[in-house]
């Protein structure tokens, strides 16, 4: 597959495309990372998973429409940045796994002022249940149009889907508020 085909497959197909990309660079990246960061295979794999997720997110945020380098160079570049970031934050380096890198990535690329609350929203979202979970994910992450969502989730029309979306967001907001109230000392 060419780079463009790989990018399109990530964008159009949630998991099949991601699997293709993950398999494509896994061995080479891991070997390279073990040398570059002087780390073990397990740590190198954590870096790889974080780098793949950042690539995946950038594709979905339409940041890769004009890729200046090859996909491999871009991916390895993400890996280098993750290692540099870890060296700067030396104290936290020991606990750095893909989950940590993911959180760092979101927190440093957002306009949200209270970044620590993003994780609380995420926890509430995991508990939201269906159909709200799918509906909000399709609309806000996958950026699907309401027409498509209405068809896939069997709503009567786009207006019904839109109303349901509003109700689901309200439910998520309230769940987050409750979680925040419990979380605060």
């Amino acid at each position, binding site marked *: 597959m060419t780079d463009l085909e790989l990018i399109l497959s990530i964008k159009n197909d949630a998991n099949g495309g991601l699997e293709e990309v993950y398999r494509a660079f896994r061995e080479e990246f891991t070997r390279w990372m073990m040398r570059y960061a002087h780390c073990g295979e397990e740590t190198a794999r954590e870096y790889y998973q974080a780098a793949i997720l950042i690539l995946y997110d950038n594709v979905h945020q339409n940041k890769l429409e004009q890729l200046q380098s090859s996909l491999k160079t871009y991916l390895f570049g993400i890996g280098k940045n993750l290692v540099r970031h870890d060296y700067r934050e030396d104290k936290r380096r020991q606990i750095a796994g893909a989950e940590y890198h993911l959180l760092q990535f979101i927190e440093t690329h957002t306009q949200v002022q209270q970044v620590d609350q993003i994780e609380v929203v*995420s926890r509430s979202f995991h508990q939201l249940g269906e159909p709200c979970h799918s509906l909000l994910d399709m609309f806000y992450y996958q950026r699907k149009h309401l027409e498509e969502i209405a068809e896939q989730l069997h709503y009567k029309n786009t207006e019904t889907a839109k109303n349901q979306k*509003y109700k689901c967001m309200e439910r998520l907001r309230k769940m987050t508020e409750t979680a925040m109230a419990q979380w605060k000392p």
Partner: protein
Amino acid sequence: MENRLQNIDWIEKYLNRGLTPDETAWLEMRLESDAELRALYQERLKLIEGIRLAHLQNKLTYLKNLDEALQRDQKRHRLFSVHWKTAAVAAGMIGLITASILIFRQPDAVELYTTYFEPYPNLFEPIVRGQQGEDPRALAFAAYSAGDYSEARIQFHKLLVIKKEADVLLLLGNANLILGHDGEAENNFLTILKEFSELHSQAKWYLAMCYLKRGELEKAKIVLKELERPDASYSEKSADLLNQIQ
């Protein structure tokens, strides 16, 4: 209420870059001067970023499952290499007659199927304990993950009546292979190849497994050769298996 809904609409269009330059300037001006609107904007952004983080966390779980499956494959590959070397030394010691028998012996397709077949893991629908409820999709994938292939097959059939999806077909094909419905399994994999643009490598690999199970070595070879290309996901495994067959 009406005002809040309208403001949410404006904010969402702004975040999706769906406003004209004039509308954008107007909203940005309002965001600077109107504290209530600014708070609503921050709240909306926080919810959307939380959804984004949750989506990526799900994908991370998916990647970790995938990685475990790949590691299992690698271990089996290494184990096979060791066995092969041991067998080669033993064959040398036994002598020419035994060696010639080994060379001219036709590989046993079913044996190869048993060695190489491993059900495709459920990487599509993360199973969250207690969240299946009555959702047929969650029930189907949970049954598959639990190894209850009969139940999974029933639920996958129900899903396909509503909508044909490649991931459902792939796992249904696997369940069919395990349960002995080989003809249906073949159809499942062929449907993915004909009607979808995704999961082709996986469908081809399991189609080859299906042919092996039925003893159709030549058909399996044709499919495996397509997978042997260096850029294909299953190239290493396919090359291994082709060596065995040939």
